[in-house]
């Protein structure tokens, strides 16, 4: 799947399922989320980015996750709003969607058993591809 946002190309070379990065900061996850959000604002509806905001609720997140089938979903800053209900919803939809979670707390990654994602930054884009298993 390729997502073009302005002059940037985001190449997502991941199968359906739940994916996460290594437990590291400053890999570019939030930058990726901001790029994707900009694309969403510009009307691209094939993917969804959910990030933390003050007042975010489990009901709101579940409603967004279930409102339609997206090819790609990014759950940015998930440590701050993950709940059992959200975890269940993600597990339910993972068969038909590629889900990328920004989750650094390993206790919570045990819920999903996610596959590992590697990032590659180029001058004109970001490539997400399968890494070794976590």
């Amino acid at each position: 799947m390729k997502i073009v946002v302005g002059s940037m190309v985001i190449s997502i070379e991941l199968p359906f399922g739940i994916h996460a990065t290594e437990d590291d900061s400053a890999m570019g996850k939030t930058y990726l989320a901001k790029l994707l959000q900009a694309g969403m604002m510009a009307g691209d509806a094939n993917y969804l980015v959910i990030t933390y905001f003050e007042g975010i609720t489990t009901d709101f997140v579940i409603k967004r996750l279930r409102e339609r089938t997206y090819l790609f979903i990014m759950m940015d800053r998930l440590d701050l709003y993950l709940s059992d209900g959200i975890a269940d919803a993600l597990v339910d939809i993972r068969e038909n969607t590629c889900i990328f979670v920004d989750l650094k707390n390993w206790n919570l990654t045990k819920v999903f058993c996610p596959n590992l994602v590697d990032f590659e930054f180029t001058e004109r884009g970001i490539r997400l591809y399968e890494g070794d298993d976590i």
Partner: protein
Amino acid sequence: MAINVYIGKENLPKEKVLVFDVEAAILAVRVIGSAFQRKVLAELEQGEYKDGRVFIDRFGNHLYYTEMSAGSKALFELEGLPDKVVNGAEMGFNALRFVAEIPECSIYFAQRDEALPFHGTKTELYLNGKLYKDCSLLNQKIESGGLE
């Protein structure tokens, strides 16, 4: 001078203010180009300090500090807001390693049963208000999952 670690909401002292959203609080930190801030920018962001307004990222772009990673923001807040408790939930392991270099800070985790990389700190280490002689002992307690 101490590093205070709080695990579990019930263990947070009522008189302390929790910075839950480290993204939102970064503008409350004065960026002065301290040795610590420069080190975080160099080693974590792979960039460099430019001035109090912007830094240079790994690609040579000049960015506001609001564009740093959540881990770097948390570190700036831990160092710059020593009277606050800063949420460590969004800090990767590579960011947590820098906490040991901060002489006075308070960090919070809603839950954690994995070791913290605070070895080599020259300050006292407290976990939920109890003093630990060294990081290994503190980690034994964390990994045992027996936090009251």
